[in-house]
């Protein structure tokens, strides 16, 4: 008889999760209780994380092409949502989800689609010593 876990968001919504999906989270795994409150994570985000866990619990083979495509779709979200998902997945210690989300951030940096002012106009922190050394080399 598999247990059912209850995950509560910061805005007081509760999600019921089957054991197989819930145990993808190390935090839940090492928790003594089946009722876990996830602080700082709203229902909208927690719901998505639960969706990911359910999908990955039912499919044994994570190398399957269909699941890969589903995962790719899953991480193609707004930067805003992406970072919130990362925070939630990190708190819940769902390693694979964190890997996928951070990979996505890396891809966005490479594609320069990540929105930060600094990233568009990069500067190096060139300490004075470096400048002086370059001067001595003739530059």
């Amino acid at each position, binding site marked *: 008889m598999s247990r059912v876990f209850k995950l509560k968001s910061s805005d007081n919504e509760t999600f019921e999760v089957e054991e197989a999906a819930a145990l993808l989270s190390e935090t839940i795994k090492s928790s003594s209780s089946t009722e876990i409150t996830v602080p700082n994570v709203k229902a909208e985000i927690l719901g998505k994380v639960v969706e990911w866990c359910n999908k990955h619990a039912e499919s044994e083979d994570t190398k399957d092409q269909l699941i890969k495509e589903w995962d790719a779709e899953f991480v193609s979200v707004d930067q805003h949502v992406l970072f919130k998902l*990362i*925070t939630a997945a*990190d708190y819940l210690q769902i390693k694979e989800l964190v890997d996928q989300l*951070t990979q996505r951030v890396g891809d966005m*940096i490479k594609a320069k689609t990540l929105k930060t*002012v*600094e990233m568009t106009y990069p500067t*190096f922190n060139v300490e004075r010593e*470096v400048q002086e050394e370059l001067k001595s*080399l003739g530059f």
Partner: protein
Amino acid sequence: MNRRITENDRNRQTAATSSATTIPYLPDNVVEKILSFLPINLAAQANTVSKQWAALWPSFPVIDLDEADPINCELYIEPGRFLSFLHHSVRRCGDQKRLDKLRIRANLRYAYVLVREWVDFAIDRCVKELDLRNLGENRYYLLAHNVLTLKSLTSLNLENVRVYASSGIDGPVSLPLLKTMSLTELEIFDDEEDWAICAVPSLISGCPSMEQLSIKKCKLGYSTMELEISSYSLKSLEIMHCHCMNLVVTAKNLESFTFYSDCTCPYHKTMYLWECDNLKHVDISCLGLKQLLLHTCLKTLENSFYTPNLEAFEFSGYLKAKVHFVDAPSKLLKATIRVWETSWPIEYYSAMRGFLESFNCSKKVKLHIEDAEGVIIPEHRRMEWSSPLPSIKQLQLYFSAPLGDREYCLRPSLIWMAPSAEILPFLDNDDDDEDDNDDDYDDDDDNDDDDDDHNED
């Protein structure tokens, strides 16, 4: 623990109050993970996102420093910027213990000191793959000799630099694990003093595991008359557009050989492939080549020879694969074919006929065989098939085993083979032919028996 919390709080505040960046605070382990997906040049940029990101510098198993990368050209627009990046990043990476691959493509003349730092950095971390390409002119950059004694190296790719292969302080070239070497536009000399001697043999003898060697557009030594490539481990050899000289290749495990040269200078005369029993793929395009010797078995049909100025061709081996000339060499004076077969299964005769066909452009064909039975094509076949050598002028046969009764069948078969040719008096395999030019290479005796019988007609 306390200190960490304070820093985290501070970061959170920065994120909250700063309107410039929209990347929120993330835990250290998450930021490390993100940075680990980035190549070094982007990770260096990413450190401007926040103090937190700046503090967390990942470890890079592969470091790619490319001054000419179009994707990153905005990084290097200002002069000296790439140099400052080189300087900055080698220090940032200082703590990492491992490095799998280092690739630098830059004007190595200007970045000489910094590149030296990077190469030393890589050597200290037992790098496996090293790729150095110089964008500057004149091959100003001299490869540090300690690269040539790096025990961990499995792959070396050099472009437009200078290499002195002779013993440095660390001893002779020794790269025991090296599998792949690629040399493009290099000057490879043995010695700083002596620019004449080609250092390729020194490099090869120092690499007992080398499987792939590619040499392109290299200066191999001004007075080297002969380049010998001898390697037991080599599987693939490529020599393109080198001002080369006579080439001898001895490589028992060689499977693929590619040679391109447009050079027609007088030094470029002879190519000799010796004991390359496993050759499966041969592609030779050599404008100046006058003499080609294949003492080997061509195992497959995949071969291609473009040698329009060829004057002499020699082959020893089994007639398994046909020689494909892209354009039949019209200046071919002499084709010497030593047949190793000693039995005549059904496929043999068509293989023999097919093999001979390629040499119809020659003036003279010399056929060596132990047992002349092998050149007596069965009569019914002679009626079905057309002659393989209708245009040649002279046919010389050498054989050793006496034919006995079968001798009367020999002449008709040869006449069929070469209807326009003068059938010269038969000779024993041991006999010298008067009009033979002095070969540089010994006439190798392929015969099993030393027969005293001297067959002459």
